[in-house]
């Protein structure tokens, strides 16, 4: 079947199998391998992307369901000149990553969280990231990074 999907502002049309998952489509068809496949069971959040601005787990969507939609992946966060997005910058400054595998999904989940809760408490950050697992257990610095990004004044609501 034919799907037309806008990913990070670029619209393309491709023939895909109906059973192709969105995460496969992003990685294999669009060549955007920043989105990781972790558990592949809707649990770990490594494959989190934004669908029309809301966080979703791309291992649990068909590419067909994204037909006509706008997707943002981790590759779409930094500015074209390479300047990091404020959330990425906050992860960098606060060492919000260890091995880095969960990081793309974390950053996308945070983007969605801060849209819904622009001024979250620490508890709201921890609960808001319950769909993302860091197996290095680096949660403390991730939470610090999110709070810092929220209060940086650099996020466009």
């Amino acid at each position, binding site marked *: 079947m034919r799907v037309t999907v806008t990913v990070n502002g670029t619209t393309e049309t491709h023939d895909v199998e*109906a*059973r192709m*998952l969105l995460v496969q489509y992003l990685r294999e068809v669009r060549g955007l391998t920043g989105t990781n496949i972790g558990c*592949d*069971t809707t649990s770990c*959040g490594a494959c989190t992307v934004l669908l029309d601005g*809301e966080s979703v787990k791309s291992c649990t969507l068909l590419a*067909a369901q994204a037909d006509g939609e706008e997707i943002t992946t981790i590759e779409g966060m930094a500015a074209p000149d390479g300047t990091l997005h404020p959330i990425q910058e906050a992860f960098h400054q606060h060492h919000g990553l260890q091995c880095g595998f969960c990081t793309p999904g974390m950053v996308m989940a945070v983007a969605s969280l801060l849209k819904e809760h622009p001024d979250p408490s620490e508890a709201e950050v921890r609960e808001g990231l319950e*769909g993302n697992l860091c197996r290095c257990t680096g949660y403390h610095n991730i939470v610090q990074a999110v709070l810092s990004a929220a209060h940086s004044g650099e996020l466009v609501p």
Partner: protein
Amino acid sequence: MIPASFEYRRAGSVEEALGWLSEDPDSTKLLAGGHSLLPLMKLRLATPGVLVDVGRVPGLSYVRDAGDHVAIGALTRHRDLEISEVARASVPLLAHVAGQVGDPQVRHRGTIGGSLAHGDPASDLPAAVLALDATLVADGPRGRREIAADDFFRGFLETALEPDEMLTEIRVRKAPSGWAFQKFNRRAQDWAIVGVAAVLDGDPRVALVNMGSTTLRARGTEEALAAGADPTDAAARAADGLEPSSDLHASAEYRRHLATVLVRRALVEAAATRG
């Protein structure tokens, strides 16, 4: 993990979906948010030949004050129910429980109709609508019918919906106070080991998550409450007649104990919200 091959069709209306469903009901499945069905398809536990995507059927995502009840469109996503002003004011239990399902990403996609039609005894929303004495509205080739929540959940992943029917609306009674939800799990996004939804306004209704092959009511507790028992005594009967399963998370005996503890907490909390 990749699902087995299927034919994908996107329905533009309930009528179109029902038409496709009636062509071959036994090998056709409706796809809403997909957060119950797609995981099963990836595990090849479900292998429908045709997948009818109803996710974009217009007019089925709403939370409406309908006078004596609140009407919820079957395609209402958990997140939309969680933040609905109508739900928060008139059925705060349902808004609260919608906010407890899975995690934010799941709540952005999953729908109330999909969750109920899936009929998983470990899900939270079936217990909430059972406690709220809901009526479920199904459309099909023989027209529209209303199914009481008490008659809807038939067995493990089995509901009263016929294979050629589609759940379109959920009607719940208003319960602005006198409610509580308790859920015990080991990790943040896990299914409940046991959960309890309690509504004390009107006839007390107490529904349990994961205490049998379907969501079900704690009849012993309800009878005790009707007879005037206090929360502790009523909660002691929470597992009367129930046979929960044992699995890697908990033994049946532990679940029965947990039910009495959580029901007691729920009854105390629900009484406190009555003001």
